[in-house]
């Protein structure tokens, strides 16, 4: 009878929890036209231009910016998490569809169509990869072409992580030119210029439309053996957009063949070197070339803070609540069944060891981009501290008290509810507090997959080398962690039974 009751409670509980997750996973936002962009400035500017162009027709167009690298954007497009994003022909052929060995535009369009994707005509500029270095060093070593690099095997390379393992990236470049350098470090593109400036590295990969090339007076090494192909900027969009929102699409496609190299380099420079926002730069472009005046409200600091705070709180609260609901029962189960406990603690321990960035990216094929995958990843991270503390809180109950409660002859559930859980509250709360603090910190990474939050200004700040912007995310995140800590200390005063607090004071 008691066993049955226990099982019944447990199954009701499992149902509730499953319902919780299913409702989160299948919650649908309004049908919006979502434009994505990668996490480098040019992509964000193009995304913003396309967004404002679309907004001119419909308010339902939004920009999900700085979504990370090519794979994330492509997969999001396939999953319809986004509808349009700016891409480069070379990247599509060499990287995204590399295994199709595409020759020529017609074949490219045909292959894309088989994925339900279409490609705009080129926007008007070619942004190819290149290798670059400081001019004085190049002159000193008499380096003009990439093939000249063979003579200096000790040069230090600092390449973007994506370039390091792309099909059209470093490994093939090295083979093509038979380059001897092994001293190659992976780093963020925006940090690479600073590395070059401080002589920490000698050679970096460049995008030919980077405004920094001129600004830092860099020497671009000539691709004398024709390794890099064309990287014409295009827009990739879902074929179904033609059906759902033909007018918006048509307006956005007016951008075809309107942005030449010089315009792009200038716009990149305005953002990266002169601190204008992508919104402003995009607005300026549309005004000048399309005579479209889009209302640009530059968000005030407080408004931005409000919106990042709300995003961040949503990530933390939902994932933490779910983790609490699941972890406490799992902790109890672990305590009552040592075998199951070992398995539970083992599995959640493994989650804890997966690097947060990797876990976030693993979530994308399952849950797409945005808040959902971030919430789920944060949830997984929050499990272990709570489970472990529930388990140890129960284990630490003195034997004499445990035996006295067993001997009363009350049901397992009552014993848990009236005696064991109250006695373990302090430990359980401490576990929740640990989870909350970890969660608040880790949630800043959610911005990488479009979840927003305090990570968004940090990400943009890193990209634009703007410390103020970085602090705009970092300081509130730290404050939130401190507030959470304080709240839990307060909560302890309320929740931990009075008799236990008296005990610890005496």
């Amino acid at each position: 009878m008691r066993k049955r009751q226990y099982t019944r409670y447990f199954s009701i509980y499992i149902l509730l929890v499953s319902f919780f997750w299913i409702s989160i996973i299948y919650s649908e936002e309004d049908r919006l036209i979502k434009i994505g962009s990668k996490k480098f400035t040019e992509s964000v500017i193009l995304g913003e231009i396309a967004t404002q162009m679309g907004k001119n027709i419909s308010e339902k167009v939004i920009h999900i910016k700085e979504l990370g690298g090519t794979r994330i954007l492509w997969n999001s497009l396939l999953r319809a998490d986004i509808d349009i994003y700016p891409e480069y022909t070379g990247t599509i052929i060499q990287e995204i569809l590399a295994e199709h060995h595409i020759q020529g535009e017609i074949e490219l369009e045909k292959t894309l169509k088989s994925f339900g994707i279409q490609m705009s005509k080129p926007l008007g500029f070619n942004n190819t990869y290149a290798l670059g270095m400081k001019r004085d060093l190049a002159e000193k070593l008499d380096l003009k072409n990439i093939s000249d690099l063979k003579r200096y095997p000790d040069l230090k390379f600092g390449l973007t992580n994506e370039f390091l393992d792309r099909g059209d990236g470093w490994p093939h470049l090295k083979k093509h030119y038979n380059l001897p350098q092994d001293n190659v470090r992976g780093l963020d593109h925006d940090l690479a210029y600073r590395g070059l400036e401080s002589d920490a590295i000698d050679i970096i990969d460049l995008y030919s439309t980077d405004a920094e090339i001129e600004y830092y007076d860099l020497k671009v090494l000539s691709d004398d053996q024709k390794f890099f192909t064309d990287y014409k900027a295009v827009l990739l969009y879902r074929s179904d957009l033609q059906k759902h929102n033909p007018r918006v699409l048509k307006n956005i496609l007016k951008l075809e063949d309107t942005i030449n190299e010089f315009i792009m380099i200038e716009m990149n420079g305005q953002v990266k070197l002169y601190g204008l926002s992508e919104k402003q730069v995009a607005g300026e472009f549309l005004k000048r070339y399309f005579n479209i005046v889009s209302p640009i409200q530059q968000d005030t600091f407080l408004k931005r803070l409000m919106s990042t705070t709300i995003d961040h709180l949503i990530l933390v609260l939902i994932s933490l609540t779910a983790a609490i609901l699941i972890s406490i029962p799992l902790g109890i189960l672990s305590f009552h069944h040592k075998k199951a406990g070992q398995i539970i603690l083992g599995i959640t321990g493994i989650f804890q060891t997966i690097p947060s960035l990797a876990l976030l990216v693993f979530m994308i094929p399952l849950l797409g981009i945005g808040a959902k995958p971030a919430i789920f990843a944060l949830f997984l991270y929050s499990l272990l501290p709570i489970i472990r503390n529930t388990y140890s809180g129960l284990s630490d109950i003195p034997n004499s008290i445990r035996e006295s409660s067993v001997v009363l002859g009350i049901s397992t559930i009552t014993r848990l509810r009236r005696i064991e859980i109250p006695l373990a509250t302090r430990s359980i709360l401490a576990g929740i507090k640990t989870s909350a603090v970890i969660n608040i910190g880790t949630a800043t990474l959610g911005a990488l997959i479009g979840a927003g939050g305090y990570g968004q200004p940090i990400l943009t700040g890193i990209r634009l080398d703007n410390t103020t912007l970085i602090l705009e995310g970092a300081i509130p995140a730290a404050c939130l962690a401190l507030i959470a800590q304080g709240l839990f200390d307060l909560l302890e005063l309320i929740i931990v039974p009075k008799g236990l607090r008296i005990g610890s004071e005496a």
Partner: protein
Amino acid sequence: MIRLSNISKSFNHNLALSEITMEFPASKTSVLIGPSGCGKSTLIKIIVGLIKPNRGKIYIDKIEVTSQNIQEFRRKIGYVIQEGGLFPHLTAKENVTLLASYCQWKEQNINQRLEELADLTKISFNLLSSYPAQLSGGQRQRISLMRALMLDPDLLLLDEPLGALDPMIRYNLQTDLDGIFKKLNKTVLMVTHDLAEAKYFGDHIILMNQGKVIQQGKFEHFLLNPAEEFVREFIQAQRGFSTR
């Protein structure tokens, strides 16, 4: 009345109890005594089902105790241990009434019973709102006794209930306990390692050593007819008793 039949228990191949068969007569106070590790506490824990014996059976009022009916029996057993085993997060009153609330007693009956028991155990009523940490050792044991008696159980098991108290408090509590046992006329089984206490309470004394019963009966038998050399040594080891 409790009957133990052929109870054996070993922990990690160390024999703690070896084929114990005995009866604890109804309405009498039996005292289990013996040196540390003789198995007396193990025996009492087996009776309330905290430890499962490897072999043997327990009968309470001629009914075999099984895992199906153990909860029912537990509610008919009052259990008091050395440090009281009071739940630190509950007030004295909540400790005492927890089980009655669980059994859905009426508020009125609970309060009435609480008054009776406070009277019986000489606990002043205002102490009942205190938490265990605010009570003295003696007061805690009295509250623990109240908790054990709340449902008016047939059987009272006490595992070294006075072991942690200092002599004066212990003396007073011994006197009061004896009064309570006589008044309630219950079957009592008490574990102690103190011979004087055993003599004071015990209608029936059972001396154990190394998992076996060495001798049982009235205290005088132990003095006059020690069953073996160990009995003489055990008595001698507790100053103040002479076998001569």
